[in-house]
């Protein structure tokens, strides 16, 4: 079955079980962007310690911790996420250094939009306190009102803007 994707409903059940395990073991859901924020806080602490202790965000959210910012649940989970993705790619024969794009989209154009999308997603995830996994998916599983609102805002906006960016995809 090389290169074949898993049936999405089976994939969904398995992902649901992983999320259930996270809640059962650790009392929390899955996430992604939080680990990047911890990484940034670690970097700031190393490069500019006084800024780390004075700037509002780090001093309010990190400076009082005795643990290093990177010694966090989400950092380990994201390291696992990368490992799991890599293992799956090996098994499926999908490991390949490549830029995925339709034939009519240049690599440069793809990189430009990937970078812009990443900046928006990174910023938005912090404004909204969590991304698709941390806020929308994990939030929905525990019936968080905010999780549902964020989920609808993410998908609603992407659908609403799809027409304007259709030449990048179809």
């Amino acid at each position, binding site marked *: 079955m090389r290169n074949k994707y898993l049936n999405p*409903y089976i994939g969904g059940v398995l992902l649901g079980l992983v999320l259930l395990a996270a809640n059962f073991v*650790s009392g929390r859901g899955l996430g992604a962007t939080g680990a990047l924020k911890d990484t940034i806080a670690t970097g700031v602490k190393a490069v500019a310690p006084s800024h780390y202790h004075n700037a509002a965000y780090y001093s309010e959210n990190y400076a009082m911790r005795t643990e290093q910012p990177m010694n966090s649940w989400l950092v380990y989970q994201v390291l696992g*996420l990368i490992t*799991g993705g890599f293992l*799956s790619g090996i098994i499926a024969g999908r490991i390949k250094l490549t830029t995925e794009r339709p034939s009519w989209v240049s690599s440069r154009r793809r990189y430009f*939009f990937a970078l812009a999308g990443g*900046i928006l997603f990174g910023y938005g995830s912090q404004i909204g*306190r969590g991304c698709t996994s941390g806020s929308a998916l994990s939030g929905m599983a525990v019936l968080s009102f905010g999780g549902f609102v964020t989920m609808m805002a993410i998908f609603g906006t*992407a659908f609403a803007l*799809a027409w304007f960016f259709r030449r990048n995809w179809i």
Partner: protein
Amino acid sequence: MGPLIVHDIISSNTNLLLAFFIGIGFGFVLEQSGFSSSRKLAGMFYGYDTTVLKVFFTAAIVAMTGLLFFSLFGWIDLDMVYVNPTYLTSAIAGGVIMGAGFILGGFCPGTSFCAAAIGKIDAFVFIGGLFIGIFIFTEGYPLWEGFHNAGFMGSPRVSEMTGLSQGVFALLLILAAFGMFWVGEWAERKFAGNYRY
């Protein structure tokens, strides 16, 4: 019994180790389901591939139902499970900005890690963007601190907001998910031609 960490059944170091294994499961399932492909993810918004909808909602209803049954059997104390707090203003605004990022970039953060793990260069670029976006947020925090904290409502569950019991709401959500799956299957047949090489 659960959550294990809250009830001191496992140590905090074990909790971090298990986070790594939970992450492996997370990444493995995402990649197996095709979430390492931006064109597959973007297919959601053009109808030719609704894998995102199917995986996402199946996972949500499985985890939700599992938690409710675990609670019923006394295996987990749901009051000790983290419920994301609701700040209505930033939940909507953040979601809107993330939605724009999704259609431009073709990934969400978790899927971009998966895609980078199998060598997608555009995913590395997206992750670079994530770092920049988060850094802008943390560095400029005083500028949007008030906005970020506006509309605080505590940590309500949707069931409470709607006045339904958790079980009834869960049943309605499952039925809604099945309805969406039906629409998704229909859309994939109708918009299959949207995928060109």
